[in-house]
C-alpha cells in the first residue's frame, strides 16, 4: 500500500483521538495529564462539528460538547471532525481548533510577550484597510525593530512547540491504549457508557484512572 493510501485509511484514528480527548476531559472535569507535563486544563469550547459521510452536525456555544445534541450525534454514529479547544498549561492559556483528519491546528491564539509585558496577539494592529497598498520596504529594518520581530517569532515558535509536544504526548497515550488490550478491556466499554449518557449512570472515573495508569505503564500522574 502506498503512503497516501495508508494515510487515508487511518484518518478515522484522528477522529477517535478527538473523541477520546472529549471523553477524558469530561470524565476528569477538564483536567488532563501526561507524564511529561503533569496536570493541565483541557476542554472543548465554542464549537464542535460531528460528521459521518455527508451528515454533519455543528454545535456552537460556551460548552458545545455538553449538549444533548452532541451525544445524540455520537449515538447515531457520527464522530468529531473538529473541535474548539482550550488549554491551560502553566501560566499559558491557548485556544485553537483541532482538525481530526489531519491533526492540523487553526486559529491558535497565544499571548505574546513583547517589550517585557504580556500583550494579546493582534492587539494594537491597525485594520488592513487602514494600512494602504503594499509598499516595498526599504532594505533592512532598523536593527531594534528587526531584533524585536525575531524575538517575538522565537517566542511564538517556542510556545507553539510546547503545545505540539503536549498534543503529541496525548496522542501517544491514546495510541498506547487504543492499540493495546486496554481498549477492549475498559476504554471502549467506558466510552460506550459515556456516549449512551443514560441519566443516573455514574461513571467510575477513579477506577478508570487507575486502570488507565496501569495500562500506560503504571506511571503515576500528578
Amino acid at each position, binding site marked *: 500500500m502506498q503512503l497516501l493510501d495508508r494515510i487515508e485509511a487511518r484518518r478515522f484514528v484522528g477522529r477517535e483521538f478527538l473523541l477520546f480527548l472529549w471523553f477524558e476531559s469530561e470524565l476528569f472535569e477538564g483536567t488532563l495529564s501526561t507524564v511529561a507535563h503533569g496536570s493541565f486544563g483541557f476542554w472543548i469550547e465554542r464549537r464542535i462539528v460531528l460528521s459521518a459521510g455527508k451528515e454533519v452536525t455543528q454545535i456552537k456555544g460556551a460548552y458545545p460538547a455538553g449538549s444533548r445534541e452532541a451525544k445524540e450525534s455520537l449515538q447515531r454514529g457520527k464522530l468529531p471532525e473538529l473541535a474548539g479547544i482550550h488549554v491551560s498549561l502553566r501560566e499559558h492559556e491557548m485556544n485553537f481548533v483541532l482538525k481530526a483528519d489531519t491533526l492540523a491546528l487553526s486559529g491558535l491564539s497565544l499571548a505574546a510577550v513583547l517589550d517585557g509585558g504580556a500583550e494579546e496577539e493582534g492587539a494594537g494592529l491597525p485594520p488592513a484597510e487602514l494600512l494602504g497598498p503594499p509598499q516595498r520596504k526599504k532594505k533592512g529594518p532598523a536593527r531594534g525593530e528587526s531584533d524585536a520581530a525575531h524575538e517575538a517569532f*522565537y517566542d511564538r515558535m517556542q510556545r507553539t*512547540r510546547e503545545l505540539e509536544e503536549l498534543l503529541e504526548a496525548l496522542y501517544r497515550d491514546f495510541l498506547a491504549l487504543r492499540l493495546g488490550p486496554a481498549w477492549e478491556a475498559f476504554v471502549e466499554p467506558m466510552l460506550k457508557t459515556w456516549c449512551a449518557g443514560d441519566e443516573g449512570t455514574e461513571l467510575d472515573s477513579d477506577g478508570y484512572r487507575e486502570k488507565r495508569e496501569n495500562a500506560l505503564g503504571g506511571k503515576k500522574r500528578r
Partner: protein
Amino acid sequence: MPALRGSLTYARFFVEGELPEDFQDRSMRAIRLRAMKPLEPDEEALERSGWCAIGEPFELELGHENVFYNEFVNLGFRTDRWVIPGPMMRAKMKEAEAAYLQKKGREKLSKREKTELKELVARKLRKQLSPSMSVVDLSWSLNDGIVRFFSLSPRKAALMMELFQKCFPVKLVPEAPYTLAARLGLSKAEERTWEELTPTLLGIGDLA
C-alpha cells in the same frame, strides 16, 4: 494566517532525509534560484510560485539574514495568478469578435479564430490588470525536522511541496494520524494492531 503575528493556522510536514554539511550555502543558492519571478502580461505562464521573504511578499532579493533565523528557515511562498473577471472577459470578447467579423466581412468565426482572439483579448486585458497574489508563510525548524506551512489549503500545500522538494534535498511528509504515529514510534505489538485497526463503533445507528 501568518507566522509572525496574529493567530496561527497551519499544517505540519515532517522532514525526512539528512541535511548536507554545506546545507546553508547550498540552500541559499537553491532558494535564490527559485525566488519568485513576477508574471509578465506577455508571457505564456498564467500562474507561478516562488519564494519571497517571510512577511514581505515584495522582497524577492533573498539573503541569509532574511531566511535563516537561527535554527529556522523562514520563507514566504508566493503564488501569482492572472485572474480576469468573467464579465469583463465576455464584454471585451464580444467587442473584439464584432470588430474582427466586420473587418473580414464575415458572419461567423472559426473555432481556431475564436481561440486566437480570446488569447489576444486576454493578453491585452492582462496589461491593464495586476495578477492576483497569495502568500503563505513557511517556517522550517531544522532541529525538529518540522515544516509549518501557514495555510490549510491542499492545493497550496501541493504546490509548496513541489517547490520545496526541488529546492532542498529532503522529503516532506504531511502530518496525519498515520504519519504522526509513525514519527512517535510504535512497538512491534502496536504495529501489528495498527495494521489491522478498524473503527470503533459506538452508536446504535452507525452511519459511517
